[in-house]
């Protein structure tokens, strides 16, 4: 057994070079990636985060003096591997634009209001079953310079570690039925339609809170291990 995490799973990812996404043209490697067997260095990974997660870090609406403007949302789901096992104790970090589609970042200067009550960053740790939950504000679409009339669909960035360095994932959660999907080269950089659909959250009426917040469910699926046990232990 050469690969313990099957590399076939990687076919769900975008190719490094996606010319429609212009920033990839000068930043994607030209030379082929070199295949290698996973060693302990790749099969282990940072599986903690508890000590850096503070009370309330998963509620982006309570980080400032008042509540941010916009549509309050709950985002929740499970971190699992592709064999269906929950991934416990995994640090999940998120960052996003405010309800007007503006980031607090110094380089985001598009003429939409900044919200003094919204930074747009959060983190949490998945529980024993791999479950995570955030409270936030639905981010707005925003313009970018990729092509004429380019707007990103509303999205939340997520960073997840899993249980090895090869399961490390940074992705974006999109919202159902966004009219901007067909025009977004980042969303469409994922060639497989089913794989693209896995980046779209589901509206979750069952967990929507009456007169308080809409709920979206987003399950995150990381690479799964083959049954082959680890060697050299």
């Amino acid at each position: 057994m050469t690969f313990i995490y099957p590399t076939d799973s990687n076919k769900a990812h975008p190719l490094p070079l996606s010319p429609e996404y212009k920033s990839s043209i000068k930043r994607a490697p030209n030379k082929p990636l070199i295949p290698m067997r996973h060693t302990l260095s790749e099969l282990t990974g940072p599986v903690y985060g508890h000590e850096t997660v503070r009370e309330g870090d998963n509620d982006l609406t309570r980080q400032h003096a008042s509540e941010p403007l916009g549509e309050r949302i709950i985002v929740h789901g499970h971190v699992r591997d592709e064999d269906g096992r929950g991934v416990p104790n995994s640090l999940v970090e998120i960052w996003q634009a405010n309800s007007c589609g503006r980031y607090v970042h110094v380089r985001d200067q598009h003429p939409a209001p900044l919200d003094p009550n919204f930074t747009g960053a959060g983190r949490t740790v998945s529980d024993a079953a791999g479950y995570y939950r955030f409270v936030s504000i639905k981010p707005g679409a925003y313009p970018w310079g990729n092509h004429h009339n380019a707007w990103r669909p509303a999205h939340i960035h997520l960073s997840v570690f899993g249980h090895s360095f090869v399961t490390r994932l940074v992705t974006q959660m999109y919202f159902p039925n966004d009219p901007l999907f067909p025009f977004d080269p980042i969303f469409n950089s994922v060639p497989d339609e089913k794989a693209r659909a896995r980046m779209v959250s589901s509206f979750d009426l069952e967990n929507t809170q009456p007169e308080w917040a809409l709920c979206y469910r987003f399950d995150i699926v990381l690479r799964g291990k083959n049954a082959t046990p680890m060697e050299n232990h």
Partner: protein
Amino acid sequence: MQGNEKDKGITPSQTVGPFFKYGLTPTGDYAWNDAFINSTLTPDVTGDRVRIEGRVFDGDGVVVPDVMLEIWQADAQGRFADPQDKRALPNASFRGFARCGTDKDGNYSFDTIKPGVVPDPDGKPQAPHIVLAVFGRGMLRHLYTRIYFSDEAGNAADPVLALVPADRRATLTAVREAGKPVYRLDLRLQGDNETVFFDM
């Protein structure tokens, strides 16, 4: 349970974007607490303390001010702070993980210790190395590479370096500055001296 029971594949990767800085690498610039800094050093850590620094360039040789780098490594005895590694961990608070965003001139740096020898799947020793992941705008999935050390005799027999054409191995080798515990390694995302990235 509904939603993502759509099929069994994994969630695809997307770019970290240009605006991760306030969420992932704030270092005091924004009203958000740091989860990680560019150092693995803890009070109890043993081993040779080193600094690794360099710059990141794109295919035009232009510095890249908006990438994020993450390192993961064993301690000086070759042990990982991971539940899968059942060996004793004398450096109890050493984690072996650090994160750094490049500055406006494309500079990065890490303060860490030189890792020990880690076996490959056949039990063969690997030369001391650090695993590095590169995230950034324009990168739809992060890239994996390794950092080796120029003053390690074991590099010549390292099984992973052996997979790399000889004329490209220098892109993985951080060069020690004379008389200082500082190693330099520039990363080139594309072009003639493109850094070797691994498919794993």
